[in-house]
């Protein structure tokens, strides 16, 4: 699928005064406050910070999985904040890919079917060919019909990578993609991630604890108690 990147501006994500707070039994909890970000198309960005500092919350807002309490986000020139949930879903399908710490594959589907899933959801006729090619690319061409339960953690994450890239997303969000893997497997996944990123000119937004991993990105954003430092 061809991604339509706004040509007049090179900024793919722009946030202004972005904040998130929730009301709990102990009063209002400010998880994120006044985040101003400009992310250029093709950039790779690492978000680092302690556990609980709001990293996941930030990417959930940027990806349109959640709505901010204050401020605005525009993706590719479109105001996320003025869209409804279905609009954001369409946008996710069109522009955004995800990789998660816990892989998040559908257990009842095979590796191939998991990778085909996002294409099928957007009605792509050539889902199978594209998915097979990408699984080949991540080195799993011999495991197409295996279900997640039959795959190791590293293999599952590779399927997840193939699924994330199969739609050729403009932006890829990765939330601690190596968090559930041993360091060696983690390293191969990270290599694969950066290779695919380069091949596809994807904007990469990566959440990590790992400073060496963060160093491989062009820019690092440090979060502390919901604020950029």
């Amino acid at each position, binding site marked *: 699928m061809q991604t339509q990147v706004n040509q007049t501006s090179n900024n793919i994500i722009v946030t202004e005064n972005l904040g998130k707070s929730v009301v709990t039994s102990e009063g209002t909890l400010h998880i994120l406050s006044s985040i101003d970000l400009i992310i250029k198309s093709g950039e790779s960005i690492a978000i680092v910070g302690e556990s609980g500092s709001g990293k996941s919350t930030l990417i959930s807002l940027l990806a349109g999985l959640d709505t901010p309490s204050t401020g605005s986000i525009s993706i590719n020139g479109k105001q996320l904040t003025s869209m409804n949930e*279905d609009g954001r879903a369409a946008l996710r399908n069109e522009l955004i890919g995800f990789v998660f710490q816990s892989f998040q594959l559908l257990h009842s589907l095979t590796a191939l079917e998991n990778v085909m899933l996002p294409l099928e959801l957007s009605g792509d*006729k050539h889902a199978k060919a594209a998915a097979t090619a990408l699984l080949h690319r991540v080195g799993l061409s011999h495991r197409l019909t295996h279900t997640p339960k039959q795959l190791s953690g590293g293999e599952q994450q590779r399927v997840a990578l193939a699924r994330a890239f199969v739609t050729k997303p403009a932006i890829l969000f990765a939330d601690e993609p190596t968090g559930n893997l041993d360091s060696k497997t983690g390293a191969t996944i990270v290599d694969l991630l950066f290779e695919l990123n380069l091949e596809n000119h994807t904007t990469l937004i990566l959440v990590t604890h790992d400073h060496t991993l963060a160093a491989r990105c062009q820019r690092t954003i440090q979060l502390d108690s919901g604020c950029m430092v």
Partner: protein
Amino acid sequence: MSRFNLALRLLWRDSRTGELTILILALVIAVTSSTAIALFSDRMKRTMTNQTAEFLAADLVIESPAPVPAEWLAKAMKLDLAQARTADFSSVLIEHDELLLAGIKAVSAAYPLRGFLKTTTGDYLTETITRNGPEKGTAWVEKRILPALKLNLGDPLTVGEKQLTISNIISYEPDKKGDFYSFSPRVMINDADLQATGIVQPGSHVHYFFQFTGEPKALAEFKRWLKPQLNPSQRILDINEDRPELGSALERAERYLGLSSIAVILISGVAIAMATRRYTERHFNATALLRCLGCKQNEILWLYSSQFVVLGLVASAVGCLLGWFAQEALFHLLRGLLPQQIASPGLLAVFFGFIIGMAVLLGFALPPLLRLKQVSPLRVLRRELEPLPSSAWLIYGLSLGIIGILIWKYTGDLKMTASILGTGLMTLLALGLLIYGLLNLTRKLLPSMSLTWRFGLQGLFRNSRASVSQILAFSLTLVAMVLSFTVRTDLIDNWQNQLPNNAPNHFALNIFPAQRAAFQQELQLQHITGSQFFPVVRGRLVEINHTPVQQIVSKDTQGENATHRELSLTWTKELPEENKIVAGSWWNNQQAGLVSVEQKLAESLKIKLGDLLKFTVGSQQINATVTSIRKLRWDTMKPNFYMIFSPGTLDAYPSTFITSFYLPEPQKNMLNTLVKKYPGTTILEVDFILQQFKTILAQLTQAINYLLYFALMAGFAVLFAAVYATLDNRIYEGALMRTLGANRSLLRKTHIIEFSMLGLISGLLAVVISEAIIYALYTQVMDMEYRPSLYLWAVIPCTGALFVGMAGCWGVRHVLNKSSLRILREQY
């Protein structure tokens, strides 16, 4: 299209992993049982209607003193109804200087449309069954005519002006009217000879019976079309009106079948709801991922509901097929009991089962399924985010709606349905609160309990919402099962009491007062048990409180029937057994001029206590004041009377006596002696009818037993659905506890305690509700007497605790066996 493929693929994979097993099972049970019941009761009903229709020799009969307009018959022809005609009249036969008043019946070629005739040419033993009446030029006569007129088979017999040949002795005709007193020996002739007898002339007293059979719909339409055109001297007979004792047995059985069917559907529905709930919860993650990948809310809903529709179609189809086989098997099992001719299965009933399947799925699975639409895509990052539970209004509203429609379909009574649903809803609400209260109370006691008990009971409180719904589900299931079981037992007992083995099977009428003592002695001598001897005077009710009855009665009612003919009036000092005073009081002193009226007739004629009734007996008139209203059982095969007078009121009028007695088959010869000794007395044999009636009851009993199995199966589906509903959580917690050092025996005990408590509480509640419902049901719907059953109070809670406890332990056995590390990993 690829979305639909995806849906199919997900469905296929889920069903292969066993994810959908309980759901499918519950659905198949619901559809199987409702198809089987619908098919079975439809066929049974039509078979029985056919059988009972034999009593009328047709499905519908118009009784008229004159031939009916030709356009009526044309209308029946247009509706594809088969037609036959009989003309009944009395005529005096004279042969060999002997005189006899006979009941002549001229029958058309198609007679009888239902049932058959029995004839014999010699003794009682070699009877032939025929489906047509006598041929032109011949006459069939009842046996007692031959000696009375000094005739033999083959002799000529002159009816009116027409000479016929006696070709057969007739021993049974299906539509012999039970009006015992106008009973004179039968001569059956062909309709083609009717004109030639010259008896039928304007003004002569002939009863025409125009008989019809055909499709129920066509019959109903015919009846509707006909009703407004009837003149006051004409009336329509159909089975329910003409044979009250069979009508009521049929009606009760039908209600029971309907009720059980609803119970099975309700139980399966509960299982479906619980299984869908689990399915939903297990699909939160997948749904969140799909949402994250860009699925819109409606697409999610579409994805899952299309899966459920496919599932529903497949399961319903399987259920229909199984239902078909179940029903066939049942008929096969009962073939010894059933008549040869069984009505064919109706396709409509199969379709009904299918509709039920889809409706149950919609009513019980949709609300939990709708929750998936609400899953937030954010769940991919924050696993603890759960969608709001579906609104209780939706959950209960939809399922109640479906059940309501079903109840309405079976009862056909909107008001009753509303009141049943209303009460049901209130009970549910009250129950929910009660369970919460109970749980809270136990929670207070927790700290003082041992570790095992604390852990076990905590399982109930941890998710009190789930516990409440589980308890509700178990209670409902138990209630439905208790209801099916109790009603069945009482229904069958009731029938057996109604017709004990030695229920009278013969009536003796027209016993002259002078012969009464001798007759009674004769019976005693042969050790034959009989009922009381009632004096009978024939009379007609003409006025109520000085208003002619014709102005009071409405068309087509019992009251109308009763005022159109002479009634049998009797008097007695004691209230006859099986009669019950419902208003006023029985006379204690010997005051003449009082009358006790049967309840239904009183209702129909709007007779109240203290009303003054005027009767004509012969050319004289008598007045009597109503002092009591009686309820009586028409189905006891004992002489029953609409009007009973106080002694002294009727004594001056000429009367005969009536009694009924039980004559066992081997003693049948005794009849000949009686007939010879008391020629004026008429013996009416009802043993054949009685046998038929008993057969029908036996059939019903069998069918009803069979139904219980469905309820039982559905009950097990609920049991497992409920256990599985919280299984994931339990397995996870169990694994956690084991890693923290809890040993297997502690875990096992906590599970036993938790589930047994669930079962115990459910059982207790179930008893309370079922007793309430049984009470309401018996007094309002089934017209039976309510007796509280103490043993239920002990049995049900124990059974509940036992079964739920066992099923629960079986369901969570993995907690004990699986490696805890694997469980904790898988859970992530």
